[in-house]
């Protein structure tokens, strides 16, 4: 495990206090999740990304994991507690998260919030504003908010009626399409490799007629277990047709390229461009209308449009997010946090009915790195040094200082101490403390505290 901290623990506590107070003002209540959970819980959420980084271990025949994030546990708790109803809950969380990287296991700090049970622009805008305004509350102003929408991109692709594997292939290669010149030769080669793989698994055509739809209502055969004949037939047709749709896939890549390269500092210009690209796709147009409503509400939270960039093809997990997604980054590209809508997770985890959900998390290590590092002994208050024979009196002084709300650190004279910037006081032989040329007795502690606070 990576050891040592490159941030000030006191600074961390202050940052956390600010963020928790800020989230409390929005009505988010503290939510505690276990540090150790069943590994499957996190794999259900986002297996592809997380599997290589999940810190797992086996105990009592169970595969367990140290939590990599908080969302899956929040969704699980919601699914367990609210199986019949869908109340709106606002939960905030903070603490350590863990990842198992090739260079060694890492512990990082995270804080964030989940809004479960509420869909629509108001909920999305609230979470985005909560995240962005938290940075403002911390005194951080040099950041950019990038907002995308996974549903728009999926709706663009839906007109092609690709199977899910082809759609995943397209989305996986979306980042390659960004930039001045997409590498089409590389994409074509990857596509051919993908289609060759599909060819190997395609069944002989002779199987297809047996699975064609008939006039009789289909009865699931014995041992179909969760798949109907229609499921099987649909997939067989997809496998057969995949190779035949090479040109369609390339056309879809070209269309996605246009969406991926929408670039304008003016969100309104981006919306206009997206409306044009969406053309006569009614679902995409509806989503764009909703997105505009969300942005109007985000602006109402006084988040400047100059700090916002719209990027419809923002690549956060395509498996997991179902609507709006966003990232907070500094001017020099450091990621401070991110989140989005994930309407399917609660049902995937086991609740019979779906529950809409949206949330975000801060990368606190990154946020803390934006604050100056204080020394190890940086505390507010004073330090009182004393000879051994004055130890009892030193304790009496410390008690009265603390009763007056001032932090005081006791340090015997013989102790070697780290350099610090605390005001230093020393007990004189008569038991008084000197400060700026004046001696104070124990009964004058309130005057001394006032003098120190000036």
């Amino acid at each position, binding site marked *: 495990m990576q050891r040592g901290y490159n941030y000030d623990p006191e600074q961390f506590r202050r940052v956390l206090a600010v963020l928790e107070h800020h989230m409390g003002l929005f009505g988010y209540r503290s939510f505690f999740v276990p540090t150790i959970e069943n590994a499957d819980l996190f794999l*259900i959420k986002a297996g592809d990304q997380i599997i290589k980084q999940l810190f797992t271990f086996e105990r009592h025949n169970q595969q367990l994991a140290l939590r990599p994030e908080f969302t899956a546990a929040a969704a699980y708790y919601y699914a367990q507690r609210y199986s019949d109803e869908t109340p709106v809950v606002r939960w905030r969380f903070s603490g350590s998260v863990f990842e198992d990287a090739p260079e060694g296991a890492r512990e990082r700090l995270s804080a964030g919030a989940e809004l479960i049970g509420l869909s629509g622009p108001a909920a999305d805008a609230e979470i985005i504003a909560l995240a962005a305004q938290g940075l403002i509350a911390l005194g951080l102003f040099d950041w950019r908010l990038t907002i995308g929408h996974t549903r728009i991109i999926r709706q663009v692709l839906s007109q092609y009626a690709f199977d899910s594997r082809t759609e995943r292939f397209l989305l996986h290669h979306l980042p390659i399409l960004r930039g001045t010149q997409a590498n089409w030769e590389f994409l074509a080669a990857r596509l051919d490799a993908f289609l060759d793989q599909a060819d190997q698994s395609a069944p002989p055509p002779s*199987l297809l007629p047996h*699975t064609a739809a008939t006039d009789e209502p289909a009865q699931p055969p014995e041992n179909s277990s969760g798949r109907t004949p229609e499921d099987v037939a649909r997939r067989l047709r997809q496998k057969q047709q995949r190779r035949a749709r090479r040109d369609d896939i390339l056309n879809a890549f070209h269309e996605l390229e246009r969406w991926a390269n929408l670039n304008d500092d003016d969100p309104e210009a981006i919306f206009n461009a997206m409306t044009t690209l969406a053309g006569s796709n009614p679902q995409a147009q509806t989503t764009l209308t909703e997105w505009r409503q969300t942005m109007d509400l985000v602006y109402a939270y006084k988040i400047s449009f100059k700090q916002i960039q719209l990027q419809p093809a923002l690549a956060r997990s395509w498996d997991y997010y179902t609507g709006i997604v966003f990232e907070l980054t500094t001017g020099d590209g450091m990621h401070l946090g991110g989140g989005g809508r994930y309407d399917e997770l609660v049902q995937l985890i086991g609740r019979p009915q779906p529950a809409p959900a949206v949330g975000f998390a801060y990368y606190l290590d990154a946020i803390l790195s934006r604050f100056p590092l204080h020394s190890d002994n940086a505390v507010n208050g004073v330090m009182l040094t004393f000879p051994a024979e004055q130890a009892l009196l030193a304790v009496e002084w410390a008690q009265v200082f603390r009763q007056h709300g001032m932090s005081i650190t006791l340090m015997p004279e013989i102790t070697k101490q780290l350099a610090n910037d605390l005001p230093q006081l020393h007990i004189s032989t008569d038991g008084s403390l000197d400060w700026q040329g004046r001696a104070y007795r124990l009964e004058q502690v309130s005057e001394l505290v006032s003098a120190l606070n000036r």
Partner: protein
Amino acid sequence: MGNGSTTTLALPSKGAIADPTINFFRDCGLRIEKPNQRQYTGFLPSIPSIAVLFQRVTDVLYKVADDTAQIGVTGLDIVHEHPHPDIVVIHDRLGYGYCSLVVAVPESWVDADNMLDVAEIALDFREHKRRNLRVATKYPTLTRQFFHRQGIHHFTLVNAEGAIEAAPTLGYADIIVDLTQTGTTLRENHLKVIPDGVILESQACLIGNRTALMQRSGVLRDVRVLLEYIDAALNGRNYYQVTANIAGESAQAVAEKVALNAATRGLQGPTIAPIFGVDLPPDGSSSWFTATIIIAAGDLLQAIEHLRAIGGTQTTVTPVRYVFLEQSPHFVKLVETLQRST
């Protein structure tokens, strides 16, 4: 069991490899006696320092891991499913108890021909049915590792005791991962094996407690004796001893004829001995010789045909009980493994 001077060998008391284990040891010349059929103890008359403890096949591993027994016989599937730092596999191929841990899907899934198809179907479940593919198995560790390696991350393991093959029919799982020997039970339950869905090829194996092997010389000594017999007996299965009567001018001439074929060259060469028959010539010389050679089992017919071709007759074939090499190769490997552990 297992006092300072006794090595305890745990053997499976029931299940598919129980009787074959007893037979295996018998065939190695290590008969196992069980004085009381109702008790779980026995002994090896040929190695008095080894006591036998009969346990369920999974419990063999646990008993060896906690040093109740110092060595044991179980299945490789058990060892891989329950990895333990104190377990060392001493011999991974005892040559019986063959089975495969496989992925099996309903035969009605005609669109599922390989694991790539299973991966897509898993995604289908997630996207269209809003639930994970359910996999019934008694091997969650191996199943999970295999599925993740295949790029299948969205699935739910259903712990199932008893007849796993019935899980899809009963509806509490969609597919299964289970052991199979011939595939008959799977077919009878309308399941088919995915060809590239073989997770593990298993057979009986000999395991040991690492610490006991490293720290107790008596245990290591007993294991060496066992391995000498086991390795020699397993080697012996690969050979036959063939004798044939062949006429020739001299032993040298007969040897040269015999050695013309690679199949009849033996381990180092044929042994040729004169036959002293009832019709010896007056000078006592013999024109008939017996050639004795050790033949690889796979070469038997080729050897017979060659011997016939060079005039061999009355050819007899006997199985070889043991072939002892300079050292038991598995003991040499065990010592190297233990040395690497220090």
